[in-house]
C-alpha cells in the first residue's frame, strides 16, 4: 500500500468503510511513514473537532404536543371534500324531477336540458372550487 492509497483508505475509515485487514495494513504503513502518520493525526483531530462543532440540536419537549394540536385542528374541518359534489347531484336531481312534473314540455326534453344545465353548473362549481383552493394554498 503506497502513501496515496493509505491516505485514501484513511479518509474512508472515517466513514466506517474499512475492513480489519485494510486497517492492519494502514497501521503498518503509518508506523513506517512519518508523512502518513502526520496526515492520520491531522485527520483524527479534524474529525474530533468537526464532531464537537457540529452538534445535533434536540427537539423541544413541546414538539409532539404542538403537532398534536395542529393535527386536531385539521381534524375539525367541517365538511368532507365530496360533500359539494353530492349536494350538487341531489339538488340537480330534485330540480329536474320537479321541472319534468310541472313544465308543459315532453319529459325527454326536460331531462336532456336539465342534464345539460346540471353538467354546466357542475363544471362551473369545480372551476370555482379549484380556484379557491389554489388561492388558499
Amino acid at each position, binding site marked *: 500500500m503506497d502513501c496515496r492509497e493509505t491516505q485514501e483508505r484513511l*479518509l474512508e475509515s472515517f466513514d466506517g468503510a474499512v475492513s480489519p485487514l485494510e486497517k492492519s495494513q494502514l497501521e503498518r504503513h503509518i508506523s513506517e511513514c512519518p508523512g502518513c502518520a502526520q496526515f492520520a493525526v491531522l485527520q483524527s483531530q479534524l474529525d474530533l*473537532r468537526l464532531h464537537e*462543532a457540529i452538534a*445535533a440540536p434536540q427537539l423541544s419537549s413541546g414538539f409532539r404536543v404542538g403537532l398534536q394540536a395542529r*393535527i386536531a385542528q*385539521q381534524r375539525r374541518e367541517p365538511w368532507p371534500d365530496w360533500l359539494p359534489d353530492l349536494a350538487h347531484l341531489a339538488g340537480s336531481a330534485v330540480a329536474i324531477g320537479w321541472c319534468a312534473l310541472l313544465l308543459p314540455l315532453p319529459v325527454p326534453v326536460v331531462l336532456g336540458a336539465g342534464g345539460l344545465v346540471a353538467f354546466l353548473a357542475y363544471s362551473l362549481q369545480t372551476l370555482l372550487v379549484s380556484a379557491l383552493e389554489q388561492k388558499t394554498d
Partner: protein
Amino acid sequence: MLAQPGGSFARIKAMRDEDVQSLLRRRCFATAFELLLDRYQEKVFRFVYSILKETGRAEEVTQDIFLKLWQVLPDYDGRASLSTWLYTITRNTALSALRAESYRKTQPIEGCDPPGANWEAGLRHLEINQLVRRLPEAQQQVITLFYLQDRSVEDVAQMLDLPEGTVKSHLHRARQALADMVRS
C-alpha cells in the same frame, strides 16, 4: 392519539419501513404515522436544521412537514421508499421556507455557543466552522449533515438524493481541503 416522546426505543429500533408500509396497506394510518414520527422526527429535524440553521424555526418547519405527511399519508402509493418520500417532502418544504424568509440574510453566526459555554471550546468551534464555511456549498452541506446524522453516509445520501459514492467523494474532498487549510 400520538405517543409521547421517547416511546419504546426497542420498538423504534426493531421497526422497519416495511412494517409501516404493511400498516398503510391495511389503512392503519394513525399507527403508521406514529411509527414514522418515532423513527424520523429527529432525522428530519436535523436535516431541516442543516438547511435553516436556526433551531426554533427548524422545529416549526419540522411540524409543518409532519402535518403535511399526516395529510398525504393515505395517498402514499409505495413507488418510492418511505424514507425517500419523506426526505423529498422535507427537502422541498425546508427549501421553500428558506426561500420565503430569506434565512440566509438573517441566519445567526455559526459557532456562537450558548451562554455558559466554555470560551476555549467556543473558539475552537468558531475556527472549525469558519473553515467549513470556506468549502464549496455541496461539501459544506454533506459534511454538516454527516456529523448531524451521527456519521451515517446512508442517511445523508437518502436525504440529499445522492448516491453513497458521491457523498463519500464530497466527504473525502472536504476532509482533504480542511487539512490543507489547517496546514497552510
